[in-house]
């Protein structure tokens, strides 16, 4: 393969409320059985990228646990492998990753000793399928220095948390605004880039010397007029999960037949760590409508328009509507849950009521499960 992969999974923000307080966004569970980073990792593997480094620093434990074996994505080969890079203290550096560019700069030795001519950079917080080879072919054809994968968002979508792009008729990027309040374009950067490895090393070293740490503002935007930066339009499904609402909506998208078929049935497949839970079990009293149920679940109640992740127990006479229940949750009898995201490993007592009245409510319950 002509490229190596870098997955920037270090990020965290406050828009995810309590959900990301205990894990990196890249480790957020998605679509019943997956973690967000599975999409980037599977895309790498399916594009035959054999060497992938995951750069992470914030609350990486559940991410590290998920990546503890690389065999699920077919990495772990003699030629290549899956690396996880967290910040380390060395004789001349004791910084955390101060930004996306700094995260790569601190691992520049890795970039220098590889031999692949190109680098594919992606975030770990997006749900999408993409053959990076197509982007790479485009990058070579355009003789680009950097190719940015971008996407047209529908009219009226809130794009103030993305980088907004304007391209000329040759697809060369002429404007790039990071998180503008008001934007003149609805084309956004997906945070997926292709760049020549030596070019990246050179840019990182230069910005590192100038104490500039962000890939978008300090590299993409600064070099915009000097280097040939092109946009590659992506037409298929792409979603960023970095806010509670977008996380909720992305999960709910999997209830749509076209999204479900696209990710669950059509090749190439998305891979994830196998957890060996038994099949889901429906006892008398189950009444499940338009919902996704994962392995290990035991259902005794009414569930509608919801996504249940792995190993969830739902007691009798509950009503669960328009909600997302993450892994290993126990829900006692007669519980009502509506418009909620129930955090993983939660234990909801019997006869309780949770409802997000104006928007999605995040439920964290840390009751003692065996004292119920």
């Amino acid at each position, binding site marked *: 393969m002509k490229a190596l992969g870098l997955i920037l999974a270090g990020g965290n923000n406050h828009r995810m409320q309590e959900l990301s307080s205990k894990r990196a966004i890249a480790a957020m569970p998605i679509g019943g059985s997956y973690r967000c980073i599975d999409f980037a990792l599977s895309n790498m593997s399916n594009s035959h990228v054999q060497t992938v480094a995951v750069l992470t620093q914030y609350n990486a434990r559940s991410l590290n646990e998920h990546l503890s074996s690389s065999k699920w994505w077919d990495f772990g080969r003699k030629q290549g492998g899956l690396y996880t890079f967290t910040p380390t203290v060395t004789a001349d550096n004791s910084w955390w990753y101060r930004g996306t560019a700094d995260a790569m700069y601190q691992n520049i030795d890795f970039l220098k000793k590889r031999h692949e001519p190109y680098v594919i950079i992606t975030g770990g917080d997006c749900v999408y399928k993409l053959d990076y080879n197509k982007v790479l072919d485009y990058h070579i054809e355009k003789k680009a220095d950097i190719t940015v994968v971008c996407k047209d968002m529908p009219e009226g979508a809130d794009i103030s948390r993305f980088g907004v792009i304007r391209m000329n008729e040759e697809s060369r990027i002429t404007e790039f605004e990071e998180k503008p309040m008001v934007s003149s374009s609805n084309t956004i950067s997906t945070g997926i880039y292709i760049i020549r490895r030596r070019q990246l090393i050179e840019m990182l070293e230069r910005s590192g010397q100038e104490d500039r740490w962000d890939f978008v503002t300090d590299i993409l935007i600064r070099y915009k007029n000097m280097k040939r930066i092109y946009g590659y339009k992506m037409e298929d499904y792409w979603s960023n999960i970095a806010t509670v609402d977008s996380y909720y909506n992305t999960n709910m998208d999997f*209830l749509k037949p076209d999204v479900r078929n696209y990710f669950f049935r059509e090749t190439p497949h998305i891979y994830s760590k*196998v957890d060996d839970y*038994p*099949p889901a079990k429906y006892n008398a009293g189950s009444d*499940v409508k338009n919902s996704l*149920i994962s392995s*290990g679940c035991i259902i005794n109640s009414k569930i509608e328009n919801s996504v249940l992740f792995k190993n969830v127990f739902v007691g009798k006479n509950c009503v669960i509507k328009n909600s997302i229940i993450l892994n290993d949750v126990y829900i006692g009898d007669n519980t009502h849950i509506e418009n909620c995201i129930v955090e993983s490993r939660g234990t909801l007592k019997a006869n309780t009521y949770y409802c997000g009245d104006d928007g999605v409510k995040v439920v964290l319950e840390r009751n003692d499960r065996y004292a119920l």
Partner: protein
Amino acid sequence: MIKKEMIAMLLAGGQGSRLGVLTSGVAKPAVAFGGKYRIIDFPLSNCINSGIDTVGVLTQYQPLRLNRHIGIGIPWDLDRNNGGVTVLPPYERSDNSEWYTGTANAIYQNLKYMETYNPDYVLILSGDHIYKMDYEVMLDFHKENNADVTIAAMPVPIEEASRFGVVITDENKKIKEFEEKPEHPRSNLASMGIYIFNWKVLRDSLIAMKDQSNCDFGKHIIPYCHENGKRLFAYEFNGYWKDVGTLSSYWEANMELIDLIPEFNLYEEYWKIYTKSDNVAPQYLAAESKVDTSIIGEGAEIYGEVQNSVIGAGVRIEKGAVVHNSIIMKECVIGENTVVEKSIIADKTIVGADCHLGVGEYAPSTLNEKVYASDLVTIGEDSVIPDGVSIGKNTAISGVTEPSDYPDGMLAGGGAIIKEGDRI
């Protein structure tokens, strides 16, 4: 020198002919079980959970599915640098090549494999039982009694004991006598086909009996050890153990998993059962679906009604279809408005729309009265059932069938359609 205290030899070469069309293309250990598993997952998971990391799997009959399932043993953590799982098919020699002619003969032909690991003990298992058992506890029992051979045995109702090999023991569980399928059993301790041998005893008896035709553990090796004054002990096992050797016992064992608190509980954290799962997606239950009292595997899509059934991974049950009291294995499709009653449908079968399976009254089988002796409709893997046909009770179908195979759109009770040749 590689040294393992105990290695396991798993006999997985049998056809399991009493499972009828379910095993027409696969060995019995590779038959699906419980919506997710294959029968061989139980002994393999027991091995790794008991700390046995070296397992030889002896295959012979239709091994393709089994080979693909086992691979290099990744799902069971049996991909090891030293030991791990090894598939052992019969092989050609410069002289006297032969198939595996009996359980003990198969082990005899693999003496070299066992010698590689210099074991102190060898555990002999069969690949066609559903149970959870800690072989390490059995080994402790074996060592405590200073035994040469330990046979796992479980108490069965005395009226059923004549179907098994029965052991008669003294108060210390030392075996005094051994009877194979006795007419009037004198004990209710039935052999489970699980043996621990001291390596030297096993090797010597296999070599001594090498010219015995169809050499079998129950019929030849155990009696030989007994006659030669070896110390034989019975290890009493009181957990769940099910021989799924017949269609009705196979169906019952699956149905027992659906009980509110099943006797054989797969949902316990302790003693997990591992399997190779190709499908990790969650299952989807549509707005018009109706599901209760069932277990359903990963990636299934249910648009119809399912009750009292075991549904495998990736199965699709279309709108208006009704499935009752049935086992539907991996990646089958049940067409719109089709009714399925008390059926076993093997992997990747496509049932058309507007069919009715399991209609009418029981009738004796025209194909094989010993194998097909219940109300069940049994359909082999990769079969196709055309739209709009009715299928009676106690029937068997295998292969791609066409409307012309069903006179008046009907396969009467007790009937069978067995198609040869290419399948999809």
